[in-house]
């Protein structure tokens, strides 16, 4: 009784470990297939090693632990070889009939025999074809190497040599500093890094400064004229110049901002420039009269209520009147020269060359026991800025003029 198609099919097929159903092959076809698959596996492994060799070299060069480096390098090489070998084998599993046909020059013969492997006998043409499979020449290793050559090892070797050369030139890669925390080794790196790190106190100071600036900027909020200053405090814009005139409320806001800034903040002098009185106070050496060399004679801003500047300042502190503060120099009034002088007042914007400094002669401290010699000593001091020398000159000129006119 002839076998049914299903019986033939079940006989001619077998299950592979991977679960794929492949037809049962003639011994010669099986031998040829094994030979091709073996060659393809070796070829794939060679490709994997060719790629893995430079990689393994780089791993070996970068790792300071020789044992681990060797283990990793060999592992990477083996892994790549295995992956590439199995990939090539898998691809060859479907292409091996065509590879065999190509090698022995039998145009699609193996492919056709394999295709009709499952058909029952009885067709003389098919039987004749099958009979030929018993005499098929197996693909020789030489022919396999000729048609499916192994990858050229030169690029891989060149890359490996380059990696080794770079490794030899650069030396072993330095470990990452943070990783070496062994303080017993006497390494200076930890100490250096620790010394370069900011201390807690510095961090606190910085935080206070930032917070102070934020508060100061808030104090200026809502005053369009002070917007540039607020931006400068926030660090959003470079140093700005104060406008010629400010409303008392603006000046009051500047005052409030200055109070909110942290002590020692380097921005204080720049903010103080927006308040002319404070600017003088913060930048003039007169406020630090004790530091002035001399015989104790000093110029100081008087707190006398009669002093116009103080009056203005006090008025501003009390809310002031909403009229622009006139910062222009007060013209000389000869009638006032006869009045008793309690103090001297400087008005104007502090500049480097003191070009706009003027003596306000409204109230002047009487010369008293001040001597010209002591003023000369002070004036000739090399540490004194030229503008203050000019102030002293003006003052002495004024004194002489006063003496000459018989006043005082």
């Amino acid at each position: 009784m002839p076998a049914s198609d299903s019986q033939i099919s079940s006989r001619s097929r077998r299950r592979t470990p991977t679960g794929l159903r492949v037809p049962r092959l003639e011994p010669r076809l099986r031998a040829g297939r094994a030979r091709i698959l073996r060659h393809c596996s070796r070829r794939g492994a060679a490709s994997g090693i060719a790629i893995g060799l430079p990689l393994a070299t780089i791993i070996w060069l970068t790792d300071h632990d020789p044992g681990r480096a060797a283990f990793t390098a060999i592992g990477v090489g083996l892994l790549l070889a295995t992956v590439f070998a199995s990939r090539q084998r898998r691809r060859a599993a479907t292409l091996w009939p065509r590879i065999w046909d190509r090698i022995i020059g039998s145009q699609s013969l193996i492919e056709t025999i394999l295709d009709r492997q499952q058909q029952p006998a009885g067709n003389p043409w098919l039987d004749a074809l099958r009979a030929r499979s018993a005499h098929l020449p197996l693909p020789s290793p030489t022919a396999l190497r000729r048609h499916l050559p192994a990858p050229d090892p030169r690029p891989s070797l060149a890359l490996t040599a380059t990696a080794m050369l770079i490794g030899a030139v650069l030396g072993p890669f330095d470990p990452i500093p943070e990783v070496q925390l062994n303080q017993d080794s006497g390494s200076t790196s930890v100490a250096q890094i620790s010394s370069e790190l900011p201390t807690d106190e510095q961090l606190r100071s910085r935080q206070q400064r930032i917070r102070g600036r934020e508060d100061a900027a808030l104090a200026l909020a809502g005053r369009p004229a002070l917007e540039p200053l607020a931006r400068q405090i926030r660090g959003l814009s470079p140093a700005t110049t104060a406008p010629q005139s400010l409303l008392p409320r603006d000046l009051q806001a500047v005052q409030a901002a200055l109070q909110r800034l942290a002590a020692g903040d380097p921005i204080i002098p720049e903010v103080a420039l927006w308040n002319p009185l404070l600017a003088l106070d913060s930048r003039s050496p007169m406020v630090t009269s004790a530091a002035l060399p001399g015989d104790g004679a000093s110029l100081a801003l008087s707190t006398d209520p009669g002093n116009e500047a103080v009056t203005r300042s006090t008025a501003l502190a009390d809310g002031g009147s909403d009229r622009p503060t006139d910062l222009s120099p007060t013209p000389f009034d000869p009638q006032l020269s006869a009045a008793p002088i309690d103090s001297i007042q400087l008005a104007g914007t502090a500049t480097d060359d003191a070009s706009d400094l003027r003596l306000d002669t409204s109230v002047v401290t009487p010369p008293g026991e001040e001597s010209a010699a002591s003023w000369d000593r002070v004036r000739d001091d090399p540490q004194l800025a030229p503008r203050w020398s000019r102030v002293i000159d003006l003052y002495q000129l004024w004194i002489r003029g006063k003496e000459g006119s018989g006043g005082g």
Partner: protein
Amino acid sequence: MVDDAVQRFCQQDLQLREALGAVIFGQPDAVDGATCALLAGGHLLLVGVPGTGKTKLAESLADSTGLSRGRIQFTPDLLPADILGGETLLPGSSGDRVEFRPGPVFTQLLIADEINRGTPRTQSALLEAMQEYSVTISSHRHRLDPLFSVIATRNPIEMEGTYPLPEAQRDRFLLEVQLHSPAPEVLTRIAAATTIETQMTATKVLEPKQIESMRQTVRRVIAADSVIDRAAHWVAATRPEDPTAPEPVRRGLRLGAGARALQALILSGKVEALRNGRTHLDDEDWKKWRHEVIRHRLVYSLEGELDGLGPEEIVSAVDRAVAHQG
């Protein structure tokens, strides 16, 4: 037995080609293509300028194979009945009777000379005959000879009074074989052979029975599914709507090859395999006649025509695309 069959086929095929080559000078490819179509059991379209031997080749095929021939000179006033035949009222003593009088289509080798001179209506009369090997007249189906083949000729230059072949009819031709203008030395041979007293005709080398046997041999050639699959992918890539179609196909074609083209590729490939002494089909076999198989099946888009795309460019592009797909 198989080897004998293949050997016999090769021998008879060689005899046939030699017999044709003796009367058709300088057109070996056309002779190979014409015999291939005949042995594959398909219809043949011969295209060439006047004087290239199209009709001579068709008649020589009939002469060398001994197949019965019918000849139709296509003209614009030709009617379907002139091709297929019709029912005629015949008076008789016992009364009038209607009798079917077969047309020239009832033959083994039908030579349709200058087929594009017939109107589309007349050309369409051949559709059923070419595909079904039968003719239906007055609801009565008339079988054609199993060896029925159409060999049509077409002049590609002359446009006056011609009608383009409908796509459906063009698709029914297995191959379109082009005959090229002969070289000067070939012209010399033609002049010398045709201007003498004896008329040159092809020698009869085969019998119709042998043609039938050869056709059966062709059908026995084994084609692996994987080989047919590759041919099918090649055909699919000639369709502009196919995702694997290359850019020239998508841009330059409106209609690509279909199922009949694949059949033609496989059948002509099988003839080629036998000619190479093989009992199985190889990729090289079906690729041999791919130009002739798809040339007349392609419908170009306006852009393709403007760019002057031809079957050579299409075939090259498809070859590259299919090879790239692996």
